[in-house]
């Protein structure tokens, strides 16, 4: 039996799901699956940059917003650009890219911004890095609201093709997880975890902390941008408020529930939290059970999510999986170069 067979089976199953799912499943389930896959991209990259390095950034959603807006501007049809964004810069107004190149450019743009922002910020530790990166998120939000000629300001940015189909979402999810697990379980990944466990000891054995953290931050930013592009082309319309505090807390909850030090954990957290939110969202619309009628209670799902978040912090701060991974590729002695891969669906 080759060591790749489990990964192969997983990929074939996912491909079947991507191909057959939309034909046989109700639209609602397909949409939930797409959201899950996009969130796995976002949360696992958050896990790599935050959980594996221990540098807890709250600015991830800032990159998601940048990715969403930049990809949306790139793919918007020319006539819609004229209608919605009449003041766009000349060359931006005249190009229309395909979904894939726009997604890649969004990711690269975010990686570049990540380099610029991260180079100074990754020097900070603990609470300070969290507050500073939250500052970055707010700056992104202020700029998006005010750069009206690019973003329509606080109004809804609309008219984007909903190109994020199930195969796209699942494809990017698999690619993201493969790349991230390659990174996380390489010597470089071990350096990341060493700096998390003990900064001084890591420096003592010659790990250069700043470049290590910065690289993790940039990789996280790239996939946040990619995920943002996927999210934008799933939603079709959004505003700066879509990518703000509420999304940040939801993604942190997903990561924390699953386990901050594990990519499998990130994926498990996404699945659990998404399922919980969907169930509660259906309940909060109000329902009647026999003579008992429950009025609609909008916001209950958020409150329950927040409570789950706190319970996890109190009783299981390392999350469901801690730093354990589901291994789809056998990482026994024979395959020391190979990193453990994992999927979850």
């Amino acid at each position, binding site marked *: 039996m080759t060591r790749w067979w489990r990964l192969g089976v997983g990929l074939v199953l996912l491909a079947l799901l991507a191909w057959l799912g939309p034909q046989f499943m109700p639209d609602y389930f397909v949409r939930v699956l797409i959201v899950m896959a996009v969130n796995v991209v976002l949360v696992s990259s958050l896990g790599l940059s935050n959980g594996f390095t221990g540098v807890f950034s709250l600015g991830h959603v800032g990159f998601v917003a940048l990715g969403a807006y930049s990809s949306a501007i790139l793919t918007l049809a020319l006539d819609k650009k004229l209608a919605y964004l009449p003041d766009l810069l000349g060359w931006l107004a005249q190009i229309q890219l395909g979904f894939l190149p726009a997604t890649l450019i969004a990711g690269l743009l975010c990686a570049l911004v990540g380099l610029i922002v991260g180079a*100074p*910020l990754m020097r900070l530790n603990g609470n*300070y890095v969290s*507050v500073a990166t939250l500052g*970055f998120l707010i700056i992104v939000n202020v700029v998006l609201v005010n750069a009206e000629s690019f973003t329509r300001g606080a109004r809804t940015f609309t008219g984007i093709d909903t190109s994020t189909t199930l195969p796209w979402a699942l494809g990017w999810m698999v690619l993201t997880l493969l790349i991230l697990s390659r990174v996380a379980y390489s010597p470089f990944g071990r350096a990341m975890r060493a700096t998390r466990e003990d900064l001084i000891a890591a420096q003592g054995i010659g790990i250069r902390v700043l470049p290590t953290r910065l690289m993790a931050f940039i990789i996280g930013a790239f996939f946040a941008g990619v995920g943002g592009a996927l999210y934008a082309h799933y939603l079709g319309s959004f505003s700066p408020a879509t990518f703000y*505090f509420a999304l940040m*807390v939801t993604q942190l909850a997903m990561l924390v529930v699953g386990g901050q030090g594990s990519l499998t954990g990130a994926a498990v957290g996404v699945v659990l939290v998404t399922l919980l939110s969907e169930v509660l969202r259906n309940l909060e619309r109000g329902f009647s059970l026999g003579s008992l009628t429950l009025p609609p209670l909008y916001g209950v799902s958020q409150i329950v999510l927040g409570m789950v978040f706190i319970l996890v912090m*109190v009783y299981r701060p390392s999350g469901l999986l801690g730093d354990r991974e589901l291994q789809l590729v056998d990482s026994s002695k024979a395959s020391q170069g190979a990193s453990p891969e994992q999927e979850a669906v």
Partner: protein
Amino acid sequence: MTGFEYLFQQLVNALSVGSLYALIAVGLSLIFGILRLSNFAHGDMMMIGAFATVLLTTSGLSFLLACLLGIAVAALAGVIIERVAYRPVRGAPDVTMLLTSLALTFILENLGILLFTASPRNFPLPDWMTKLWSLFDGRVTFTNINVLSVGLTLVSLLFLTWFMRRTTVGLGMRAAAEDLGAAQLVGVRVNRVIVVAFMLASAFAGLAGVLWAAQAGVVDPLMGFTPLLKAFVAAIIGGLGSLPGAVLGGYLLGALEVLIVAFLPPEVSPYRDAIVFGLLIGFLLLRPGGLLNVTREVKL
């Protein structure tokens, strides 16, 4: 309008908004100093204080009594969140406590939306609060709300100074801020000290919430979010954990915001918040201990 009077009017505005930042930041810094907790839910104590005041006033209580009770409700809310959410994670890594407070503020804000809807409500003000004062033939104007904001902030800060210096619990707080474990060893009743710290900080936030709502004229469930972040900036400018630093930072930030709007070209003023948070990042990098240089290991 002559230059001097324009400057004077801006000074009035700066003092008025800076007082509120100082009032919020000092509570934030008090709690951070003891627990190393970045209490994001602190802003929601403002919201709770202001909403309690609105509800009590509309139920027929006199305005002043409603304000006092509203502030008491905020203080009580602070004690409850400490007991329910923060005590179980006390001593956990900084990030765990920070995440807990983020989750808490998410809960409180959504609870506010669920109970009161997201749309703003009028904050009922008695006439004497909005009485307009004018100097220099009406070229410099301010209301009693501005006077109260500055006056009550100063009174609160003087009270806090007295409390920290002259009472046993205050002494305990200073000891706990120095070293929580050592304070416990020498017999400081840490739980009581922390409860009182939350009570004081939340009462200050409640007062700030009432004044903020009076200045804005409305309350809404998310009203605490932006002031809290600004107070964070103020506390970091002064040196997170230092009470005088938080006050200094609050007034400096108020002055800076007014300066940006008053003296820079109008195209810049929408970017005010971005500039403020840019400043925060600059401070963290160049002088992480703040102006008063609270020495803590924060930077690589």
